[in-house]
């Protein structure tokens, strides 16, 4: 793959360009341009969806009202809120230069970022879920994918994080679910106010060292610039935003992944409503509403705290018909994934 790491600092750019610029670079790398480390900072807030995710997960009405554009990226992960408090990086290699196994590729391409965080004084680590964390808090949102014959991993330095807005842009049917998601977002997603210039320098050094490449500041080529125009149009189209065709959602339950191993779940069956937060497979908190539960509500909520997800139906069943109705609602969530 040659001996050069092309480094492109796109600087502050529009929300659209904060996506399409690095996608254009990825297509360039696929066509033979050198491995590329790029940086972008959106000049205005927006929302971005992972390749497969449903647009229905985003509160489009709120985003429209607030003037927040919504774009779909070609790499994975969920819907996220981005603003100028976040510096984004993208490392892109020819696919043949990355391990064929995606977990290995992810590890290889995230470990230099961990080293860069550490170099600027953040005690970061790559956890077993391949998330960059400080303790049990996620400090870098990442996504990855193969674009033609290039592998790209994206992430960010979160200098400031608007937890409230990051939760508000999500379409959540229940105020209780929104409140619990915000609570966990605040608990498990943290900003790291490192100096962005120092972080950027540390990133360049860490990736060049890890990949054994010589740093060469660069820009998009003419061909990549031409591709950028097409990408601008593609990413602005209704068809692209709609995403790949998917069958209707399997379950009526709404789940939100706050970070790996940390979820909120909201579900309803008839007039029974259940909101549960799950941390590492165990219920953290529960919020229940069901006709007939009456004075047992608090007892049922307390009984669920600390219970493995798989045991939730059995615990609820102790509370008679209302409990069974809540269990039926909860069955709408795929507990095996939580």
């Amino acid at each position, binding site marked *: 793959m040659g001996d050069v790491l092309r480094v492109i600092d796109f600087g502050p750019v529009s929300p659209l360009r904060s996506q399409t610029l690095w996608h254009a670079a990825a297509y360039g790398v696929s066509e033979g341009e050198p491995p590329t480390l790029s940086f972008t900072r959106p000049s205005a807030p927006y929302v971005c969806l*992972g*390749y*497969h*995710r449903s647009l229905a997960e985003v509160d489009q009405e709120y985003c429209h009202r607030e003037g927040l554009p919504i774009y779909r990226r*070609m*790499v*994975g*992960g969920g819907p996220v809120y981005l603003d100028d408090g976040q510096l984004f990086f993208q490392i892109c290699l020819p696919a043949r230069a990355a391990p*064929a*196994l*995606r*977990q*290995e*590729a*992810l590890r290889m391409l995230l470990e230099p970022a961990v080293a860069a965080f550490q170099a600027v004084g953040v005690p970061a680590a790559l956890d077993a*879920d*391949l998330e960059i964390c400080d303790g049990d808090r996620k400090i870098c949102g*990442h*996504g*990855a*994918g*193969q674009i033609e014959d290039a592998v790209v991993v994206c992430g960010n330095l979160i200098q400031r994080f608007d937890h409230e807005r990051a939760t508000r842009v999500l379409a959540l049917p229940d105020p209780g679910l929104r409140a619990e998601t915000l609570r966990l977002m605040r608990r498990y997603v943290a900003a790291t106010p490192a100096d962005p210039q120092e972080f950027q320098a540390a990133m360049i050094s860490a990736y060049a060292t890890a990949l054994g490449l010589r740093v060469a500041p660069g820009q998009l080529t003419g061909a990549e610039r031409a591709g950028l125009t097409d990408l601008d149009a593609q990413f602005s189209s209704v068809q692209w935003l709609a995403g*790949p*065709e*998917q*069958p*209707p*959602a*399997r379950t009526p339950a709404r789940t939100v992944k706050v970070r790996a191993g940390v979820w909120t779940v909201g579900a309803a069956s008839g007039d029974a409503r259940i909101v549960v937060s799950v941390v590492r497979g165990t219920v953290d908190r529960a919020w229940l509403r069901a006709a007939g539960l009456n004075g047992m509500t608090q007892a049922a909520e307390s009984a669920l705290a600390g219970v493995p997800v798989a045991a939730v139906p059995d615990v609820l069943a102790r509370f008679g018909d209302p409990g069974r109705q809540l269990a039926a609602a909860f069955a709408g969530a*795929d507990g*095996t*994934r939580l």
Partner: protein
Amino acid sequence: MAPTAIIDVQGFPLALDRRYQADTHMWVQLAGPGQARIGMDPLGIETSGTLAQLSFLAAGTELAAGRPFGQLEAAKFVGPLVSPVSGTVLAVNDAVVADPGLAERDPYGAGWLVEVSLSDADGDLAALLGDADEITRWFAARLAGYRLTGVIAQ
């Protein structure tokens, strides 16, 4: 479809009634004259991580051997599903799109991915592993390699 002949290879099921693309872990099973089902074997699935999402080319779309016929997302990594054969997509398994875990639970059965009409059955199938002994040796060697490198737990 004929009953599936499945053997156990060091804890992983291996179906011997179909052909395999060695690099991608895709299987191909003839489903009628000039037609085949495509799926992914358990090693391919295990080494992908927990499947989060699957998407495929729509029915009626042409596909080419060595080119993507869909996308698989695991661990927030979206990567191509590479077709072992050329032809036209006849059907997509909507059940596995709705529930990617189906491919993990039943990789040789209900977790199939797409059905295709083959445009070069003889040529494409000849390029795949088809002999039971050869398939077993390949699968065992891949598994040993994954375990040696820690990709799959011992």
